[in-house]
């Protein structure tokens, strides 16, 4: 999708009609709109969002006051926004109207037209059509309010980030399917319990329903605790960052962070040793376990050999020769079929031959090898145990030192610092307690799932005698399995998206960030910046905004990469313009220049709405090769200038007045530069 132009009529401060034509070039793909605060940047962003999706950003004040006040005073009752765009090589026009005379439900109307050879052909289902161009749930990430970017860097950022990723993935359809499958499962379970005359089935069904409800409740509690932990973790890290930045505590805090990093490394080493020990049990354990039996077996073979029992003292060839010659070793005649002949022939059963001799040699060699390996295995496990004991000792020492350093900070004679440290320790304790709770809940869920599985088996068994029940059980089984499959597919998609986005974000950060940090998009979707040594990096306001901007940029790129993705479970991605309102507000001038240089590459079409604080010379210079259209919003005021300062902008060497006084109306006008 590429927007060609928008036309506003009496929309908020834009009195009368105003048109903006957007840059659509392959090289010059940026439209730059300059405006001071309050002149209408956010209104323009909202005009497009409103026209296409009937959405408005969170910070858009008085969302029900769409009609321009002056126009309203003059008796106008209509406001509108038209968006003309290209999609799949065809042009379309979407218009949304606001009519103040209509009741709430009918206040806004939407129309869409296909433009063919200059003629406008009305479309039957405009909303459905727009949703197929850019799904409504993805819209706010393409039409992005930079001033609201802190949503991605706050304590609860993981929620916003997960919502954003799931929206771009297009999970909505699958989510509805999950809800529907759950409802179907509940209904079938209820129907099973209502089968007349089957008290056993009813009893099992009641217990099963109760158990499944308990599992759902326990899972929800676990999720709530995980959310709490995430918030505590964020608050704790913030306090730790503040302590690092305070002169009096920074040395101790830095030392503590260093020890914490070492402690994390030691814990990782301990986990690795535990893994080695488990691997040892699988590979070498058998040699140690069989140590006694192999010793006894070898002794047995040796003893029997000495006694002459292994191998047998009778050689097979020798016995065969006696039978063939029909003469015993004692010279007695051996007539076939006689008792004497049978006695000698019986010796063949245990007589030694080349194969048996070979087997004995191989058995002896194998057992000896086992015994040698046992010695090596014991040496190896002793080494691992020693390593483990050393690491545990180091871990205990480090934890003690960390606690002592914490106490030192707490004892500093500055109340603000000691209070912060106490609060940090409290949060640490809370996190520990909540983690313990989660451990308990995991065990409970596991037990309940085992009970549910047994009850399901019992239900299947009981229903075998009842045809109707049997059919219902089969249906419920099918629905449960489908639910499991869909849930696991969604989790896998989310996981893949998380990994791809993390890579994408780090790729952008490598080019624009001034510090050597990496972004980590955790398994619970919390986003954080970490320094090269894995410590969380304290973030300034600017870095928070940078991270949010880079996250949005990565989402937009990811969406474009998914345009041809599988469409069965998820919605495919989309290509749409990236409209950024005030994306550079908190960045310093160096960051603004390096970041904005990257923006034109983020999407096929980019619209930047910038105030003078963000659109300085450095930014304009970086964007110059990409600008295809440029506008300035001018505030016109009926009032006289009086003592008010003049607001001017110098753009490309020319001075522009941004506020005009003694004008016939209060309004914002749009001037193309």
């Amino acid at each position, binding site marked *: 999708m590429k927007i060609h132009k928008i036309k506003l009529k009496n929309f908020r401060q834009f009195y009368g009609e105003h048109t903006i034509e957007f840059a659509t070039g392959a090289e010059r793909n940026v439209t730059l709109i300059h405006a001071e605060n309050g002149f209408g940047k956010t209104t323009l962003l909202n005009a497009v969002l409103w026209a296409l999706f009937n959405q408005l950003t969170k910070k858009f004040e008085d969302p029900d006051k769409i009609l321009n006040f002056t126009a309203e005073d003059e008796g106008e009752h209509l406001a509108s926004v038209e968006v003309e765009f290209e999609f799949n090589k065809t042009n379309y026009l979407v218009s949304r109207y606001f009519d103040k005379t209509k009741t709430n439900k009918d206040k806004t109307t939407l129309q869409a037209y296909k433009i063919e050879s200059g003629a406008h052909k009305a479309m039957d289902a405009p909303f459905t059509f727009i949703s197929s161009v850019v799904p409504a749930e993805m819209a706010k990430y393409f039409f992005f309010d930079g001033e609201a970017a802190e949503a991605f860097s706050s304590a609860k950022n993981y929620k916003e980030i997960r919502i954003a990723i799931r929206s771009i993935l297009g999970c909505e359809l699958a989510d509805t399917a999950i809800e529907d499958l759950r*409802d179907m499962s509940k209904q079938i379970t209820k129907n099973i319990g209502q089968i007349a005359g089957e008290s056993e089935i009813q009893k099992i069904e009641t217990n099963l329903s109760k158990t499944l409800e308990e599992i759902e409740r326990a899972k929800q509690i676990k999720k709530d605790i995980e959310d709490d932990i995430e918030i505590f973790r964020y608050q704790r890290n913030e306090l730790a960052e503040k302590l690092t930045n305070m002169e009096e505590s920074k040395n101790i805090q830095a030392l503590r962070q260093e020890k914490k990093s070492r402690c994390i490394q030691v814990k990782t080493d301990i986990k690795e040793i535990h893994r080695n020990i488990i691997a040892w049990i699988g590979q070498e354990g058998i040699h140690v376990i069989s140590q006694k039996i192999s010793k006894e077996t070898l002794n047995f073979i040796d003893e029997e050999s000495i006694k002459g029992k292994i191998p047998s003292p009778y050689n097979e060839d020798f016995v065969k020769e006696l039978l063939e010659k029909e003469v015993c070793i004692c010279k007695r005649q051996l007539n076939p079929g006689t008792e004497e002949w049978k006695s000698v022939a019986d010796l063949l059963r245990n007589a030694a031959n080349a194969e048996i001799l070979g087997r004995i040699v191989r058995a002896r060699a194998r057992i000896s090898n086992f015994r040698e390996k046992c010695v090596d295995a014991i040496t190896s496990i002793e080494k691992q145990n020693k390593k483990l004991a050393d690491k545990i000792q180091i871990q205990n020492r480090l934890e003690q030192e960390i606690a002592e350093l914490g106490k030192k900070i707490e004892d500093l004679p500055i109340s603000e610092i000691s209070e912060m440290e106490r609060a940090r320790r409290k949060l640490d304790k809370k996190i520990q307690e909540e983690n313990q709770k989660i451990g308990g809940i995991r065990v409970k869920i596991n037990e309940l799932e085992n009970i549910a599985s047994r009850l399901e088996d019992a239900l299947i068994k009981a229903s075998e005698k009842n045809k109707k029940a049997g059919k219902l059980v089969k249906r419920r089984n099918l629905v449960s399995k489908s639910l499991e499959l869909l849930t696991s597919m969604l989790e896998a998609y989310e996981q893949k998206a998380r990994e791809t986005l993390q890579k994408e974000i780090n790729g952008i950060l490598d080019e624009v960030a001034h510090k050597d940090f990496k972004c980590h998009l955790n398994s619970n979707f919390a986003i954080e910046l970490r320094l090269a040594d894995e410590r969380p990096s304290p973030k300034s306001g600017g870095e928070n905004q940078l991270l949010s901007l880079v996250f949005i940029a990565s989402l937009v790129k990811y969406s474009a990469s998914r345009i041809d993705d599988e469409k069965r479970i998820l919605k495919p991605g989309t290509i749409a313009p990236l409209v950024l309102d005030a994306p550079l507000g908190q960045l310093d001038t160096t960051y603004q220049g390096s970041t904005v240089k990257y923006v034109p590459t983020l999407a096929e079409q980019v619209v930047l709405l910038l105030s003078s604080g963000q659109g300085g010379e450095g930014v304009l210079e970086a964007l110059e090769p990409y600008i295809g259209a440029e506008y300035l919003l001018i505030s016109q005021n009926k009032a006289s200038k009086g003592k008010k300062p003049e607001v001017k902008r110098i753009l490309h060497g020319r001075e522009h007045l941004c506020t005009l006084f003694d004008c016939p109306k209060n309004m914002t006008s749009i001037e193309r530069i």
Partner: protein
Amino acid sequence: MTHQIEDGTVKKFLKEIMDIERIYEKELKNAKSARQSELKELLDKFASKELDDENS
């Protein structure tokens, strides 16, 4: 478990569920509509064809 269902059958059923969800995807979330009854109908038809044998 006596009533084991083949993975292929589950995938096929899920595909049909998603086909119905896609037909109704533009309607309001959580809206009570023909979707639920169509899903129920699908379950009955699918199960009769794929799961219920003559002797059960």
